[in-house]
């Protein structure tokens, strides 16, 4: 699971008001190389929740992203490379996503998060 995916997921348990961002418990993180595409990064940037991405990157051991980001940074090649790596190349392979409100763990196995809810959570 890429951190880009993590940035779009939230806990949908019934009664939870703020299920985003999910905390990351990382057991195994892998890197998979992806072609560098600056246009994609510039397009996706406005849709990214930056704070959540920074926290997620740090949770998987990547500290190269600045605490705050603004669109002007998209002109910097360094910044784009770091963003590229964090969003697309780092994968949470094994571990869990944790609901920030309830602490419910959503397991991640073989890179696939299981967000399915139990009957009493719907």
């Amino acid at each position: 699971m890429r951190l880009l995916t993590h940035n779009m997921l939230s806990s949908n348990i019934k009664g939870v008001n703020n299920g985003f961002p999910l905390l990351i418990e990382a057991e195994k993180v892998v890197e998979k190389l992806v072609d560098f595409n600056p246009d994609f990064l510039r397009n996706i940037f406005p849709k990214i929740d930056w704070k959540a991405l920074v926290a997620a990157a740090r949770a998987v051991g990547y500290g190269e992203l600045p605490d705050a980001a603004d669109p002007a940074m998209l002109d910097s090649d360094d910044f784009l490379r770091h963003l590229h790596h964090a969003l697309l190349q780092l994968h949470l392979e094994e571990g869990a996503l944790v609901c920030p409100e309830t602490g419910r763990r959503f397991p991640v196995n073989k890179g696939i998060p299981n967000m399915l809810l139990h009957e009493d959570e719907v």
Partner: protein
Amino acid sequence: MPSKIAQIRLVGSHFEVYEPCDDSFALVDALLADLTNLLEHKPKLCMEVGCGSGTGEKRLAGLVDVMVVNPPYVPTPEEEVGCDGIASAWAGGENGRSVIDKILPMADKLLSDRGWLYMRSTEEESLHVIKFWRDSDRLLEASETGTVNKIVPTRVIESLLSHFPGISLRRSGNSKSS
């Protein structure tokens, strides 16, 4: 007279899942038929909604530019909707609309101002893909290929207009187009 039983081929990876057939291809055909518009639209965030998508409705509200949905639409007893078994893949409830009626308001929240929704549906046994967009999205008026041959069902959410553009195609009739 010997009885005939329809044979449905299953995929190798799962004993209950059948191979993609007309209804799945209709969605692909519709997207291909609308390819030029889609490319011009330059969507930034696309989403495919399937069974059990754990999507963050709040997180993505107003951000999705293109959404593709193949909802379960077969009329079934209501209790089969969302059940644990394979039936949830097709069970659409009493009138086949249970899931669709939940998806439409969700799509309304998720789609951006210029967002498009493509949804599979059945209309008198034929395969249709319906494309929805917001009233405010003027870009679509440029697409003249679309012939509106159906009055908007009033039950769809107010801010979305339902049209049947040139993309309402039966799989069988589409091989020669484009």
